């Protein structure tokens, strides 16, 4: 049997102080792990979270919504850009040999 894949949303931004990729968690905190960020499938909730994110001008820059497909097994299909963002700066440096 096949369940219909759902479109889900996570709010992301870059930290003002150093540009680190961050995600909005369910306590309205900005965290570095995508896995710790809850995703919502409700457009209204997405809009509420984005509005909140935009009010965090002093902490983060350029908040936006990542939308992805939530597969039936719970994994997320992300663009290559978002996969690399989610791996973080440390991983980027390791990949580059630094």
């Amino acid at each position, binding site marked *: 049997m096949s369940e219909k894949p759902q479109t889900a949303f996570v709010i992301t931004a*870059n930290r*003002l*102080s*150093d*540009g*680190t*990729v961050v995600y909005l968690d369910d306590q309205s905190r900005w965290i570095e792990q995508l896995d710790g960020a809850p995703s919502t499938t409700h457009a209204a909730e997405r809009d509420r979270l984005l509005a909140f994110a935009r009010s965090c*001008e*002093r902490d983060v*820059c*350029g908040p936006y919504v990542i939308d992805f497909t939530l597969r039936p097994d719970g994994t997320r*299909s*992300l*663009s*290559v*850009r978002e996969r*690399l*963002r989610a791996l*973080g*700066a440390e991983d*980027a*440096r390791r*990949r*580059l*040999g*630094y």
Partner: protein
Amino acid sequence: MYQYDEYDRRTVEQRARQLRDQVERRVRGELSEEEFRPLRLQNGLYLQLHAYMLRIAIPYGLLSSVQLRKLAFVTRRFDRGYAHFTTRQNLQLNWPRLEDVPSILDELAAVEMHAIQTSGNCIRNITADPFAGVAKDEDVDPRPYCEILRQWSTFHPEFAHLPRKFKLALTGATNDRAAIAVHDIGIRALRNDAGEIGFEYFVGGGQGRTPQLAERISPFVRERDLLSYTEAVLRVYNLDGRRDNKYKARIKILVKELGAPEFTRRVEEEHAKIKDDEGLVLDAREVARMTAYFEPPRYEAFTNGHTSLDGLRLGKDRPLARWVTGNVIAHRAPGYAIVQLSLKSKDLPPGDVTADQMDAVAELADRYSFGRLVVTHRQNLVLTDVPIRDLPAVHAALQAQGFATPNVGTVTDMIACPGLDYCDLANARSIPIADQITKRFDDLDFVFDVGPLTLNISGCINACGHHHVGNIGILGIDKMGEEFYQVMLGGSAGAGVGGGDASLAKILGRAFSADEIVDAVEKVVRTYVDVRNEADETFIETYRRLGPDPFKEALYGAHPAASQRTAL
């Protein structure tokens, strides 16, 4: 080399102070990101995928050892110990913290450096022939004119908000090593039959999503008119350039839409009105003042021995011979040589250097090359004035630092943009592809046999990696959420790099996955080796003789038309 006067010094100090104030206003919450963004961009400060990036201007690529040591210090103190030289002859820091950037600018100001106009829709850092002043094929040293234009363009109040960014490149040599055909303005300084200096003037070249070669709009702009003519071009562009669509806003689109004759007519009409303005007429005294800054250093007179590279090229020391053949170029002064440092090795991404390497190169520049060095638009460094006598010692020192790979001008001397490892705009990674290509072509005998070949990689359509003018160009794209790479062939930035006249590369066929692309590149190279006429027919010559078909067949089989249809 130009030395700052009190005015230049004050300007860069005040610029650092202005940014410090702007950063403080942003951190205090008085400026929103939307308001702050254009301000930081005018200081070359970008927000990239994982971090801020600061682009530091290196006017026409010329550096002193003192400046390079400062860059090493800044890289170590405020970043993570390495930095990246770009195709605009600039240096980029990859991981600075926002609050440190004003301090970085203060440090740079102390050695006559800055990040002014390294971003934004203004006249960007001016680039030039990296061999300016030492090349044998040079008629006129372009650097005094670069400096005159740098000062004219610095905070030019009328042209700080152009429709789009604006890039100038200058050469004064027969062979174009500055890629003047793919700049918004490309200028070749030359002498007419009467011996007077003037400028062959090209406008409207560029890469990006609409690649175009520049049109020659004047065969000879008089020296006195350099500023007035350039001001006329910029005024026509500022008033008439498109502002309704950012992708059609570059001057190349204006030149294309109007046609070169009409564009030229508008420039000439404007120029006629301003050419005698006292504020714009360049006079001989100012040219002489600027030229004095770029006088050749006090060369030693080498009377016997050590005046030819041939001995070293044919010598028994094979690594030295190969290095002198590949990376060292004949100099205008007897007994001297131009030494190119390859920033393309197995150890670091193309164009990257560590702080320790910068210090070491600064030391070499002091010992062997009058304390000067140059950044090339192919992301290498040059020691411009090395005595031939010292080449073995310099070679040994460069080997120790990882700069002696004898691959300059070959398939592994790649241009590569930072790509999706760093860049917010990229669609695909460039650096891992460059790394794989370096490893695939690690047989120097084969690389030497293949000969002159430019391979340029961009991680997106913006073409920072100059894929349109690579003999082989690779363009990263995002195809259904995965990284894919298109192969383009037949590009050339000009006679100095890649051979012949400038030309734009054409897409060969469907794109390749990250796993396939290096095999595809190797097939292209091996096909060239198979079909070239003689061992000395270069890749671009072969491509121009035969066209894309042998390469298409090698990559896509016998039915190139079918693969063309599915090309992205």
